[in-house]
């Protein structure tokens, strides 16, 4: 009997202590040393240039600010989109988190952000306007890196086909058809929603910017099934009819298309500029240029990229802003640029790194972002738009739907 009571007591104590450790995590001090919780999708323990740059920047920041510690939590973008609204509602939002541009308004509407402090408006040398990164309560995020869409093509394949680099989307269809007959995927895109429909949504975003088609109307309802929008759908339908889409297109993601481009099985595609540096080292035959044009508009795409913002109800807003300011500031951005990302402030480009030959590509991309892209506003349902696009794309490919059907069903899905 004594043994059993003793066993119970031990078990109870163990349970209590476990519970205590579970519960104690949320306590935070408001004076003295501060610990910031930071959500990023990059895993510093991975062995790639971007992760290494992040690790270096974190270490440098902590060294420069001995009273601030940064506790990094690796959270994938999909997880972030799920958890942030819940965490905010529970008062457990991280102090700082990375978010992708089109989803900032959605997260702001879900209550995930604290507005940026007044000190934020003292920074004025952002390369592109930042007022689109706002929520109902004002500015919530600042850009951490810039990217826009670029047109990638395999020079060797095009030379073998004896064609010039396409300048319009119609030309792309023709060349893609020829490439498909030669045995490669004519144009790389993907209709999977596994990675938040990244590739089709990004392409759509840039195309709509090119043709000056706003995605939402004044009431915030998706309203893009116009002539210009239908042109996008028709482009995809034409590719399908020319046999230029990969047979795995319904399950292809941003990553699989990039892989295909790198190993030469994809002739052309539209991807973000963040892949330029790695693509150059993976396959020197792959070149990039500005976007082809549609029947209207030009080749100016959308300025997108990762942003940093302060979480809702953060108890360390000032320390958080210090961190954000550092990470987007010249020193940290120069380190980040070695990993292939494009810094967002003009001051950064005066750092010594950008005068070195290694920085040639990054400088070129920065110029391209400045000249060929504009940021625009997003309503608070980008996720629905993106999912609608990938579902409509699957429908287009599997059930041979038309371009106008594609754009209409995507619009309807966004407005559901």
């Amino acid at each position, binding site marked *: 009997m004594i043994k059993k009571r003793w066993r119970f007591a031990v078990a109870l104590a163990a349970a209590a202590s476990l519970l205590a450790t579970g519960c104690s995590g949320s306590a935070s001090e408001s004076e003295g040393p501060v610990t910031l919780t930071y959500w990023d999708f990059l895993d510093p323990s991975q062995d790639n240039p971007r992760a290494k740059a992040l690790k270096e920047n974190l270490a440098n920041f902590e060294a420069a600010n001995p009273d601030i510690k940064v506790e990094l939590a690796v959270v994938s973008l999909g997880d972030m989109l799920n958890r942030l609204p819940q965490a905010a509602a529970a008062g457990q939002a991280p102090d700082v988190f990375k978010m992708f541009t089109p989803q900032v308004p959605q997260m702001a509407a879900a209550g995930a952000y604290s507005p940026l402090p007044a000190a934020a408006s003292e920074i004025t040398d952002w390369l592109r306007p930042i007022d689109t990164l706002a929520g109902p309560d004002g500015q919530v995020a600042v850009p951490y890196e810039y990217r826009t869409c670029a047109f990638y093509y395999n020079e060797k394949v095009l030379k073998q086909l004896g064609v010039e680099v396409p300048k319009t989307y119609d030309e792309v269809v023709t060349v893609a058809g020829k490439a498909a007959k030669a045995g490669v995927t004519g144009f790389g895109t993907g209709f999977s929603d596994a990675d938040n429909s990244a590739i089709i949504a990004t392409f759509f975003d840039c195309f709509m910017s090119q043709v000056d088609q706003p995605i939402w109307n004044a009431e915030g309802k998706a309203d893009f099934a116009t002539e210009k929008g239908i042109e996008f759908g028709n482009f995809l339908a034409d590719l399908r009819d020319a046999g230029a889409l990969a047979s*795995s297109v319904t399950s292809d993601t941003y990553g699989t298309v990039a892989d295909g481009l790198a190993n030469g099985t994809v002739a052309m595609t539209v991807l973000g500029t963040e892949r330029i540096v790695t693509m150059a080292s993976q396959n020197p035959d792959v070149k990039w240029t500005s976007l082809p044009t549609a029947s209207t508009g030009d080749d100016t795409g959308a300025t997108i990229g990762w942003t940093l913002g302060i979480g809702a109800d953060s108890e360390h807003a000032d320390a958080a802003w210090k961190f954000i300011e550092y990470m987007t500031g010249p020193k940290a951005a120069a380190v980040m640029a070695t990993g292939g990302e494009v810094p967002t402030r003009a001051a950064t480009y005066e750092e010594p790194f950008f005068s070195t030959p290694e920085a040639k590509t990054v400088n070129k991309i920065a110029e391209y972002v400045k000249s060929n892209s504009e940021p625009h506003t997003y309503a608070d349902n980008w996720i629905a738009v993106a*999912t609608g696009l990938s579902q409509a794309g699957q429908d287009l490919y*599997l059930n041979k739907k038309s371009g106008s059907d594609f754009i209409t069903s995507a619009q309807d899905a966004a407005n559901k």
Partner: protein
Amino acid sequence: MSIASSPRTQAPDAPPTSKVAVIRRRREDRRIWLYVLPVSAVFLFVFIGPLFYTAWTALHETTYYQIGEFSGLNSFVELISDPDLPSSIRTTLVFSLGALIIALPAGLLSGIVLNSLHRFKRSVRSLFLLTWLLSQATAGTIWLWFLNPNFGPATAITKSLGFGPTDVFSSPTTALLAVTLITAWWSYPQAMLLFLGALQTIPEELRESLKVDGGGLWHDFVNITLPFLRNTIVSVVIVLLMLYVQMVTIILVTTRGGPLGATETLSMRVFNQTFNDFNLSGASATAILLFTVNIILTLAAIRFRRKESL
């Protein structure tokens, strides 16, 4: 009370030998319930609470994870009138029955083969059990890699035979087929283990007659082994069906319910509605439907077990 009387159990109301013994036994009887208290508490917390919460949520409007106003049977009406529901149900049926048709005979045959071996028994048993030792996530992802349309060996084989690459997960029909086959591939050892237990209890006389009787193997199998295993077969069917109806992981890591909902079974639908659509109320309604299906299967199992013990 002698040792010879109740050999297995001790009825709490056995005639007492003295008044003191009565009091002690009654106090002890009450203390019995202390022994089942922890189990009951855990069950209350993990199963009963969530079950009621699910029912509660299904009866209310929800935004993200906040429960809003009472909406009665709205979510159920929405569920029944959802044009995607019939296809989810059909997908669940095709998936469960398809996997069952493969896993059940495979399990039975493997069990028989294993049972008849005298040498190499351990190695063959390891071979047969291998797929089940892999986790569901492992099973799904290694097939994902094997069937990769760009780099997988399956593509190499189909290309050399003149077909295209194996875009198994891009087309609705092949995706469902693939998911069903992978699930059967992973789960047949579970059936095999259950059959093994039964096969090992076949009485000696039947075993002898299996070997020596005239009339051929098939005759022995159909007329002697099968009837004996009838109960086990029903048991295995129920176990497997419940496994398939609840299967989420294999589908989640391969297709996540796509393409175009072709592999979205009822369980997958519950998952997607919760984490993609943030439609907690709708997901709860679907969950109640799923639970009903499970109850039907469970009742069948209990009814069957009671019949067996008669």
